[in-house]
């Protein structure tokens, strides 16, 4: 009876994963979707612990299992609850790495069983182990290890622990490692059972190495894409475990994440107007190399702090466009102060949120939510583009690419075709940034040279604080 019920548990889990993921892709149901998937996961875990039977034998070692689960749960919950909102992507990367390591460890233990069972007799490993079985083990090991190592590097880079590192010919080097991995994996299969562990663990080491060098050269700003890709890797590694144990919950959950994660990676790239290859090789559109930047004519006009404060104080509607610079300067709280102060003066203040502003999808939503900005004040791109027409002052805070009109007018621009916030529709535009340096895409911005636009140079946090004092004096 037990195993039959367990099958049903696994079916339920698979269905909740599908439903959960589906609901996660719609804002109205996302949170419930997450809970549903979590419920399915609990069912699958408890079912496995209490109902799993192998040749009629139940699982043992309950004290070990439960203490491991308790330790993992406590640490996991604490870390997840404590972390700052803006540090979430690196946390996702960290957890992803844990999953990858888990998949790799399982496969290693299973390999170890096979190795111990056969090391006494001298024969080819391929004679004693079925190819499908070996394939599941070795694939799980390799993919899990790559995912683990890569995720840890991504985590380190995002939390500032490691720097970008690349050397000439790194791509060649990476491909070489990849080939070596495959060779040693195949070699292990045809080795003598007595020494098969050597090529096997060399494969593991190479896979870890590959994970490191795969992620190291990629720019920090592209980490969300890489994490999403590694996420789908871990999914595939979990699916290998599903093959190994003929376990449908692992198989379906793993493949689901593998497929959805791959598509999500591509969608993320597309939202930034880039291709995946481009992200992984790490240059933006190749324009920087070409050096065919157009000389932009026109002058840049600066505005004084007091004039800027005055302009906003007497406006009817002000729209704030936050960007990566705001996040870097950690100026979200000061920004919220400014908004409240303007609000008290009877000015209508709203935020225009571009979907890829910042360095991860939803970055601005998370950032402003942390500063307790009310959700109603956040406008999505399409709404915002409608409202700009009736806006008196747009305050651009550390955003650049997402307001670059080249995306609309200049077919030769690498960001051409990306939808942007059309701030030029408003009466006045004030742009705050520290210099005339370009943003992520590395391109000039015609907006800064337009007659409507005035620049307010300086660090976002400092400028906002000074604006606040000016406002108080009006």
């Amino acid at each position, binding site marked *: 009876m037990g195993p039959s019920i367990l099958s049903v548990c696994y079916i339920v889990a698979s269905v909740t994963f599908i439903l959960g993921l589906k609901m996660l892709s719609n804002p109205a149901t*996302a*949170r419930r979707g997450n809970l549903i998937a979590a419920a399915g996961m609990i069912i699958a*875990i408890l079912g496995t612990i209490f109902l799993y039977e192998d040749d009629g034998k139940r699982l043992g070692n309950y004290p070990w299992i439960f203490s491991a689960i308790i330790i993992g749960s406590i640490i996991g919950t604490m*870390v997840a*609850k404590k972390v700052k909102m803006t540090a979430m992507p690196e946390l996702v990367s960290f957890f992803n790495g844990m999953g990858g390591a888990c998949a790799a460890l399982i496969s290693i233990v299973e390999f170890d069983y096979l190795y111990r069972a056969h090391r006494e007799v001298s024969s080819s490993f391929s004679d004693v182990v079925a190819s499908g079985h070996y394939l599941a083990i070795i694939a799980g090991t390799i993919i899990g290890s790559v995912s683990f190592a890569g995720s840890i590097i991504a985590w380190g880079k995002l939390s500032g622990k490691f720097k970008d590192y690349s050397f000439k010919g790194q791509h060649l080097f990476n491909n070489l490692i990849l080939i070596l991995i495959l060779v040693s994996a195949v070699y292990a299969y045809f080795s003598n059972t007595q020494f098969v562990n050597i090529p096997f663990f060399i494969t593991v080491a190479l896979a870890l190495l590959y994970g490191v060098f795969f992620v190291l050269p990629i720019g920090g700003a592209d980490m969300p894409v890489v994490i999403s890709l590694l996420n789908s890797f871990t999914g595939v590694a979990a699916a290998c475990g599903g093959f190994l144990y003929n*376990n449908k919950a692992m198989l379906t959950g793993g493949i*689901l994440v593998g497929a959805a994660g791959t598509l999500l990676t591509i969608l993320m790239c597309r939202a930034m107007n880039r291709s995946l290859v481009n992200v992984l090789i790490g240059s933006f559109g190749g324009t920087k190399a070409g050096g065919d930047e157009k000389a932009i004519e026109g002058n840049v006009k600066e505005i004084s702090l007091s004039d800027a404060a005055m302009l906003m104080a007497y406006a009817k509607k002000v729209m704030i466009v936050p960007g990566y610079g705001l996040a870097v300067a950690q100026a979200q709280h000061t920004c919220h102060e400014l908004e409240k102060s303007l609000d008290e003066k009877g000015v209508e203040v709203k935020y225009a949120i571009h979907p*890829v502003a910042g360095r991860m999808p939803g970055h601005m939503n998370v950032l402003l939510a942390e500063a307790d900005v009310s959700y109603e004040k956040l406008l999505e791109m399409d709404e915002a583009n409608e409202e700009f027409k009736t806006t008196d002052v747009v305050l651009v805070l550390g955003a650049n690419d997402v307001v670059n009109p080249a995306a609309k007018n200049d077919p030769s621009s690498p960001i051409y075709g990306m939808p942007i916030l059309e701030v030029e529709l408003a009466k006045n535009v004030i742009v705050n940034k520290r210099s005339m340096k370009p943003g992520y895409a590395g391109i000039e911005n015609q907006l800064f040279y337009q007659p409507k636009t005035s620049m307010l140079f300086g660090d976002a946090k400092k400028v906002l604080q000074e604006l606040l004092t000016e406002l108080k004096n009006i």
Partner: protein
Amino acid sequence: MESVIHFIQENIQMVYIVILMIFLGIEIIGRVPSVLHTPLMSGANAIHGVVIIGAIIVMGKAESGNYVALVLGFLAVVLGTLNVVGGFVVTDRMLEMFKKKK
């Protein structure tokens, strides 16, 4: 080639499940708006934590003398739990940001 076809036939049901899941994975999230990319990634991350089932099986089957299996299995369960619990909790926290306040 022949052995590939043979392998497919022997695992035909698995092959079907894999193919159908791939289609489903792609269909399901095809229309996700970009703001949800991060929570969706995080939620998917939690789901692949299902690999913990394998870790539990390894741990539960390990005989008392087999330290490799016991230690690695224990570690695997801890890491798997981290992935699952941390993944779902962090996703929930993110999504809390997106709901209408008040």
